[in-house]
């Protein structure tokens, strides 16, 4: 039970982090038709910039400054590079973001080095947010903060007590993502600029005719999307590892999220993010394979079959490829994606 709860929360927090990335990606895609290949690179830049700021003035200022820096970089890229290739069509647009991801990776390695940097979360977030204490006598109860060691062990050998802590960084990640989600939703539906963005999604010419500067709206959305990725980077970088391969690790997963959720659907991206976050988190913890499954239903295999590495693969080992399998299955059975409307 406590395994399920903690894994679920971990999965949800990872899913929400994925949504911070995929929401920006989806917004940019549905506005400009550009799938920003460098989106995960902005995530990485956010983490590294925050790391540098945190070394000088601490984590909290970095949490606000780094996304802003990344947003400015993103907007500048849109203004000076992406807009220039817009007239050539979608493939060059995709290619220029692909080239950018390549250059950013090299520049990050050039500036911060090729190995992981030490970017710890702030002091407040280092411990667990709460601890689930499951005792075979008292049942399960929740304890804020870390549980004292005395509570997690019992003098009586017959009483089994398990303490499952939930890291505060994960809780913080969920909190920031939810705040961001609500803010984004309010901005898109309740403010004037949100309305302009929404209408520019479907009728850019009309919006332009009404006197709004649509290219500037594009630039702002691109910058904001990059900024969100940067914010996710600050949190992701301090929770996980800040290293040059972090962009590649999360990059292809968010593309899967966007395709599975349905290209251009924000709600679809939300559902797909959570789904993939939860699936991946649970899969990593499950140590079952075809061999153990067969054994549990009473089938004994010959020595050759039992030794086959294909059958011995555990779910935990295949966890990294589950999102891609999911992608292929979705495309076969529901080509639009979960909530997509586009059929192309």
């Amino acid at each position, binding site marked *: 039970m406590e395994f399920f709860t903690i894994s679920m929360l971990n999965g949800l927090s990872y899913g929400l982090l994925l949504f911070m990335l995929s929401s920006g990606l989806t917004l940019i895609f549905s506005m400009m038709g550009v799938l920003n290949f460098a989106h995960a690179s902005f995530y990485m830049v956010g983490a590294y910039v925050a790391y540098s700021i945190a070394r000088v003035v601490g984590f909290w200022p970095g949490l606000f400054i780094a996304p802003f820096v990344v947003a400015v970089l993103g907007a500048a890229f849109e203004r000076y590079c992406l807009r*220039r290739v817009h007239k*050539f069509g*979608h493939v060059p647009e*995709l290619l*220029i973001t692909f*080239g950018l991801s390549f250059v950013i990776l090299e520049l990050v*390695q050039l500036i911060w080095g090729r190995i992981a940097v030490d970017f710890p979360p702030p002091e407040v977030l280092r411990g667990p947010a709460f601890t689930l204490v499951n005792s075979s006598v008292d049942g399960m109860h929740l304890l804020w903060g870390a549980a004292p060691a005395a509570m997690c062990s019992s003098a009586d050998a017959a009483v089994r007590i398990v303490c499952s802590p939930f890291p505060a960084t994960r809780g913080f990640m969920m909190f920031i993502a939810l705040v961001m989600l609500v803010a984004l939703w309010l901005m898109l539906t309740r403010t004037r600029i949100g309305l302009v963005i929404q209408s520019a999604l479907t009728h850019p010419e009309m919006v332009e005719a009404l006197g709004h500067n649509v290219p500037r709206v594009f630039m702002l959305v691109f910058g904001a999307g990059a900024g969100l990725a940067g914010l996710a980077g600050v949190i992701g970088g301090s929770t996980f590892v800040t290293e040059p391969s972090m962009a590649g690790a999360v990059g292809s997963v968010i593309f899967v999220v966007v395709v599975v959720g349905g290209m251009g659907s924000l709600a679809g991206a939300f559902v797909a993010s959570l789904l993939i976050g939860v699936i991946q988190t649970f899969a990593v913890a499950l140590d079952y394979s075809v061999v153990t499954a067969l054994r549990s239903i009473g089938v004994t295999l010959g020595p050759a079959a039992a030794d086959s*590495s294909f059958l011995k693969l555990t779910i935990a080992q295949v966890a990294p490829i589950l999102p*891609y399998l999911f992608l*292929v299955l979705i495309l076969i059975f529901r080509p639009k994606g979960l909530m997509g409307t586009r059929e192309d």
Partner: protein
Amino acid sequence: MKPPANRYGALGPRDLIVWGIAAAAMLVAPWLFSSGLAVTMLSQMGITIVACLSFNMLLGQGGMLSFGHAVYSGLGSYVAIHALKAIGGGTLAIPVSLIPLVGGFAGLFFAVLFGFVTTKKAGTTFAMITLGISELVGAMVLMVPEFFGGEAGIAANRVVGKAVLGITFGPQIQVYYLLAVYTIVCTAGMYAFTRTPLGRMLNAVRDNPERVEFIGYSTQRVRYISFIIAGFFAGVAGGMYALNFEIATGEVVGAFRSGLYLFFTFLGGATFFFGPIIGAVLLVLSFVLLSEITKAWLLYLGLAFLLMVMFAPGGIASLIMMNWRIAKFGKLRGLLAGYALLALTGAVGFFGVAAMIEMIYHLQLNADLGPTLRFAGVELNVQTAASWLGAFAVALVGFGLFELARRRFALRWGEVQGQIEAAIRAREEPA
């Protein structure tokens, strides 16, 4: 520029000359560059030419941007290396010279399998699915060590079986000639494909899929069949790779290699048939030579790619063809001075930027070797402000002058284009 399509798709005398020259060049090349390194590089060029051309069947001719082309060449390599091992073990009785074909059929098989899913869509979604498949296969490498050999990969020996006419494929030069034959045949095959009805339909699917559907073709099937053919040629390239290197490791199916195909096909020029050939030659040159010269070569490549996408989306091939047109109208001589000036100022600016990049790399990687480094004959000290300011000033002056030269050149260029337009109009008007 494609030669004018004559009605029967037959080769004109001009085509025969071009192909003859290409074949002769491949035949003579190892005599001109006879060192071991050169022959190795020439062999690799043959492999990458086939791979990039097959990639361009998708990108240039079909408008399909694939991020997973190395899957088909790489799986071709793996199957070919297994076949080579089987020949060595005596369980498979085919000549070693047919190994690339084995790779080809493997590529074809996997393209039939994966292409069914990927070609359901076009455009951005297609790109994303190919990326997913590429990740999937890349992750498989470590999961199924029986087939992929894990981290170490699978090695085989190509000097097996009976020697035919004294050819054992032991010496690199013999392999080179075999690969050259495959390169020529595959290039001719892929060129022929562009002139078949299917090849033309593929162009139509790229340019206006909606209209193609109206005429009664299934765009999905056109994409699927073309994808399979491209997979076959990619597999041949993979088989050539297996024969040349006698090893297949996880890297051959990896995303990095797929990215490289994309990079260099685009740099060479996706809109012309011969563009990817230029790209493939550049790929091998930069991999073997540029990586020796500087540690920052990937950064330079990335920047070159960005500039290319922004300013010359047709790649090097389109630049050549633009100047070819000017030369045909006899106007190139007037532009040469402008080109020289651009090249000179650009080189100065690049020198300044490159000096700074090299200094940063030096700080990052070789700081323990002391503060000085030699760059293009100049002694730079990363700890003195003079080096940094000097490099910055050189870059600033170079690019400033470059911008001035560019403006004058752009004017001149416009003038020349205007003259050419006028000449064409004058020619078309009835005398």
